[in-house]
């Protein structure tokens, strides 16, 4: 029996490394190619770290980067303000509304962004009328877009703790609802809130569909536009954006790991 198991382990190891190496080449090749491509013109990378010069040479790109960062921050903020109190409140006081809230939050998963943009066009005609055509108005659409991912993260965080008992204990000691949420429940779901925010930032930084079709700008729109005039630069920026997303999501998965290990 021991011989069979050892032979199987050996076979599995051979299989594992064959698959990993073949697919590893497939996945790393485009990134290596991006690096090679972006170093064909000298000075591309040094320009990327020199913000004032970048701003001067590629004003559209700089504007896109700024717009995306602002959108990411504001979307995370709006998502948290909208979702966290609602999720807590529904759990505590409106349990019968929970299936509806869950359904609404997961609905964007079945509506492709390209479809959402068709329906959003008339809504955004009003948004433009009231708030102007700034790229920051995309935050409203992005909050809907990240709803499923953020909701799942926050809901998982709330499921891991006994919200009801915590709230009742706090209420019994004379806390108001605001105190219950801000000082009792929120600190207990901090890692869930963080992962929801991370996911939001990662998704917003990668968004292209809605921004491009509603004629607003962000990082991806700027990269696409840049691709038409300066291929080298656009590939360099793409690689940077990709690495940034890598770091963000790797941090996120590390957070996720430490959370799992604790419970």
């Amino acid at each position, binding site marked *: 029996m021991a011989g069979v198991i050892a032979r199987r382990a050996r076979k599995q190891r051979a299989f594992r490394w064959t*698959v990993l190496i073949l697919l590893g080449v497939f996945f790393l090749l485009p990134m290596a190619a991006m690096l090679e491509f972006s170093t064909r013109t000298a000075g591309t990378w040094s320009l990327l770290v020199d913000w004032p010069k970048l701003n001067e040479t590629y004003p559209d790109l700089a504007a896109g980067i700024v717009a995306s960062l602002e959108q990411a921050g504001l979307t995370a903020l709006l998502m948290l303000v909208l979702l966290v109190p609602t999720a807590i409140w529904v759990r505590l006081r409106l349990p019968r509304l929970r299936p509806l809230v869950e359904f609404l939050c997961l609905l964007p998963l079945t509506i492709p962004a390209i479809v959402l943009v*068709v329906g959003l066009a008339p809504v955004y005609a009003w948004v433009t009328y009231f708030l102007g055509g700034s790229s920051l108005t995309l935050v409203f659409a992005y909050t809907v877009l990240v709803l499923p991912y953020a909701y799942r993260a926050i809901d998982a965080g709330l499921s891991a703790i006994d919200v009801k008992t915590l709230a009742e204990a706090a209420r019994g000691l004379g806390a108001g609802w605001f105190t219950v949420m801000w000082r009792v429940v929120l600190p207990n779901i901090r890692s869930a809130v963080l992962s929801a925010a991370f996911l939001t930032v990662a998704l917003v930084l990668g968004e292209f569909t809605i921004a491009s079709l509603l004629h607003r700008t962000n990082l*991806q729109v700027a990269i696409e536009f840049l691709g038409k005039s300066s291929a080298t630069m656009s590939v360099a920026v*793409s*690689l940077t954006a990709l690495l940034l997303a890598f770091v963000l*999501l790797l941090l996120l*998965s*590390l957070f996720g790991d430490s959370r799992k290990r604790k419970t």
Partner: protein
Amino acid sequence: MAVRPRLRGAALLGAVPFLVYVAIFLIIPTLVVAIGAFTGDGGHGFTLDNVRALGDEYILAAFGRSVLLSALSALFGAVFGALLAYALSTAKPGGLLRRTVTAASGVLAQFGGVTLAFAFLATIGISGFVTVWLQEHAGVDIYANGVWLFELPGLTLVYTYFQIPLMVIVFLPALDGIRPQWREATENLGGTTWQYWTRVAGPLLAPAFLGSALLLFANAFSAYATAAALVSQGNPIIPLQIRGALTSEVVLGQANLGKAMALGMVVVVAVVMTLYSLLQRRTARWLG
């Protein structure tokens, strides 16, 4: 206790901001698409013209290409992703290899859109790294029969890049649900490896595999950004047809046709996702 009903009415107020927000930015857009698909271009009056126009040859062809692209990329993604997931499931649980590959899959599954399109342009574009290298060192011209990167074969290859990692993420939990005891039991009863895979593990994994493949299909079917950045001429697939309808609203009768196409996409995705959740429930019975 008698105050409960009054309190519940007040409690409802707490959910109002969320519900209003979702109504404006999710429900209204959905209704705009659903109603617009059945409205004439004058803005009033019920009509089936838009939905009937979906039967036009060029739209049907675009739907067909979308389905083909999604099915092929889901197939490749599911097969290679399952192989990779199996390779991972035989590695040490919690080991460095497994953690790294799972984390990388999480990132790469999200990697789509403009950056992915440009990555492939830098790799196998006309002056891409691999294209040039093959030409100079092996004398092989991968575009001898025309540039296929901006057509269906190219799109399939690029989509597979984010489909494989997604498969790893959704299929790995099912593989982890397989217990070593089942294999031992098969062996104790005299079963061979072949019998174990075809009679025990295969049937157990089949719903999970099929369900994951459906999820991949829906993922590719709704993707827009990658194709939009790659294909600038012509609108071969449905999301790009919708782009055409949205950006050329000067062409009369296009605005609500776009909504009908959008509705068609939602119907396809909804059917696929329903099947997915049914299969998911079946998977959970054994491998949950």
